[in-house]
């Protein structure tokens, strides 16, 4: 009995402790009205990435706006770290990296550190330091070294930035705010942005305090031949393999018949 009371008390305390944390989630703030030029991107044969324009209304005129693009899915990638073995460069260790976003782009009118405190930035996961904190590394192979976290994070950042999956643009030209109220900007979705649901979140800060939050969902999906090929190769690999062989052999024979000389080898 005493034990139960005790647990209840602990539970109550925990709730009290959690409550303010919950109240601080962005969703509880005044909604920022936003609109996207479209909410669906289709990957077809000639897909080379896409661009979507976003518009929004700042709830507090003159407040700073920060926009973040992330994916619903989290990344779970394996990264190889190269090292020198004798005269050759080869993979010496591997890390499985989880917890980092698959795509991460930020637009703001001025540098983040002028808008919010480092603590707020970490709490809301705005900026690369927050991503580095969130990133988890599990050594799969090789020997860990203390400098690995920096090395792997920098390496991952470079890979992501080259694929145009990560970037932070702090430029009033890129995020225009008309008369402190209406803001507009665009996100480029690179070809490496694969199928899935993507979130575009708008944060408005007044003197470092969050005063508004809005969210748009963008979906990317393969259509037509692209969707069919991907699904078939992943879900019916044997059928896909046989089909690939038959199509290739059929085409080869056809070419042989057309050119009569019998192709090339």
């Amino acid at each position: 009995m005493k034990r139960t009371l005790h647990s209840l008390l602990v539970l109550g305390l925990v709730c009290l402790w959690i409550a303010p944390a919950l109240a601080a989630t962005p969703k509880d703030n005044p909604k920022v009205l936003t609109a996207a030029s479209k909410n669906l991107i289709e990957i077809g044969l000639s897909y080379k990435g896409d661009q979507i324009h976003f518009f929004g209304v700042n709830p507090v005129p003159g407040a700073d706006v920060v926009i973040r693009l992330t994916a619903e899915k989290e990344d779970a990638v394996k990264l190889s770290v190269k090292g020198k073995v004798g005269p050759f460069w080869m993979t010496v260790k591997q890390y499985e990296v989880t917890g980092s976003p698959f795509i991460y782009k930020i637009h703001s009118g001025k540098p983040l550190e002028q808008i919010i405190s480092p603590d707020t930035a970490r709490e809301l996961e705005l900026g690369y330091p927050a991503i580095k904190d969130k990133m988890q590394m599990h050594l799969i192979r090789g020997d860990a070294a203390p400098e690995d976290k920096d090395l792997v994070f920098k390496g991952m950042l470079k890979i992501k930035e080259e694929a145009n999956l990560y970037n932070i643009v702090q430029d009033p030209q890129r995020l225009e705010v008309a008369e402190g109220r209406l803001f507009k900007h665009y996100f480029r979705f690179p070809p490496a942005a694969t199928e899935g649901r993507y979130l575009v979140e708008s944060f408005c800060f007044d003197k470092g305090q969050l005063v508004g939050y809005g969210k748009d969902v963008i979906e990317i999906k393969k259509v037509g031949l692209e969707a069919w090929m991907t699904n078939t190769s992943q879900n019916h690999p044997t059928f896909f393999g046989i089909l690939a062989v038959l199509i290739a052999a059929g085409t080869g024979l056809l070419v042989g018949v057309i050119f009569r000389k019998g192709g090339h080898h």
Partner: protein
Amino acid sequence: MEIYLPIAGMSINFFLVIGIGGLVGFLSGLFGVGGGFLLTPLMMMIGIPPAVAAASDSNQIVAAASSGAFAHWRLGNVDFKMGLIILAGGIFGGTIGVQLVKVLRAAGNFEFVMKVVYVLMLGLVGGAMFMESLRTILRSKKQGAAVETTAVSEPKLGRLFAKLPLKMHFHRSGLSTSAIFPFSIGTIVGIMAALLGVGGGFIMVPAMIYIIGMPTIAAIGTDLFQIVLTSANVTLQQAMFNKTVDLLLALILLFGSTIGAQFGAIVGRRLKGEQIRILLAVIVLVLTVKIFLDLVITPSDLVSLAPATGGGH
């Protein structure tokens, strides 16, 4: 014009792929080799993930070789018995090779092993071919007249293998040898076909002529016949276990290589045999040096993405 490759998961210039297919087709038409050994590294250079490049090239080779095999079959140049035994070895080797790719990809060193095997193979083949063709050119200059190719001496290794059990007679090739011999050559080439995405013709044909002792034309016909089936097996296994066959990429490559091969064959008829061989040797050696440098020069990025095993994108 950009095209999105569904399995490679990337957008690439359509004409770049057609152009590479055309170039390799041109070279294979000119030199009479499959060209898979050039195609895979070229694909990797333009950013196709190595495993997807190798698997899709195997798929492309099925098509390229089947058109040649069909023509040789009509001319009666295929030794089916020999081909089937080599094929049995090829399927055995291909199966081992695909599992090897799976293990190596998971360990993150697939690219390294692939490049080392490439450097060794290409360096050996390119070097030998360069020396042989250079000697022929020098000799023909000295004598002022074209030198007939020296008759192939009866291979010593072939005689040794003929003493092993499971001896068989091969009617079309006009020889008797142990079945173990073509089977083990098939196995080795099968493993390489999976590792490198090559048909293996550039190793197989010399092996059949110089080691087994088959007539050249029967060697080429039989080789093409077994390449169709070996690379079909590799394609199927890659699709089943690694899910890395990009059919769209293979089809574009095929389109380019078919056209290129026709032009290559036309130019090839105007050049002398040793001129063609020395040209091929130089290309192969340049490629070898490039891949070798990749292995020893400090990479610009120490951290790289390791593709997840079995993941297709």
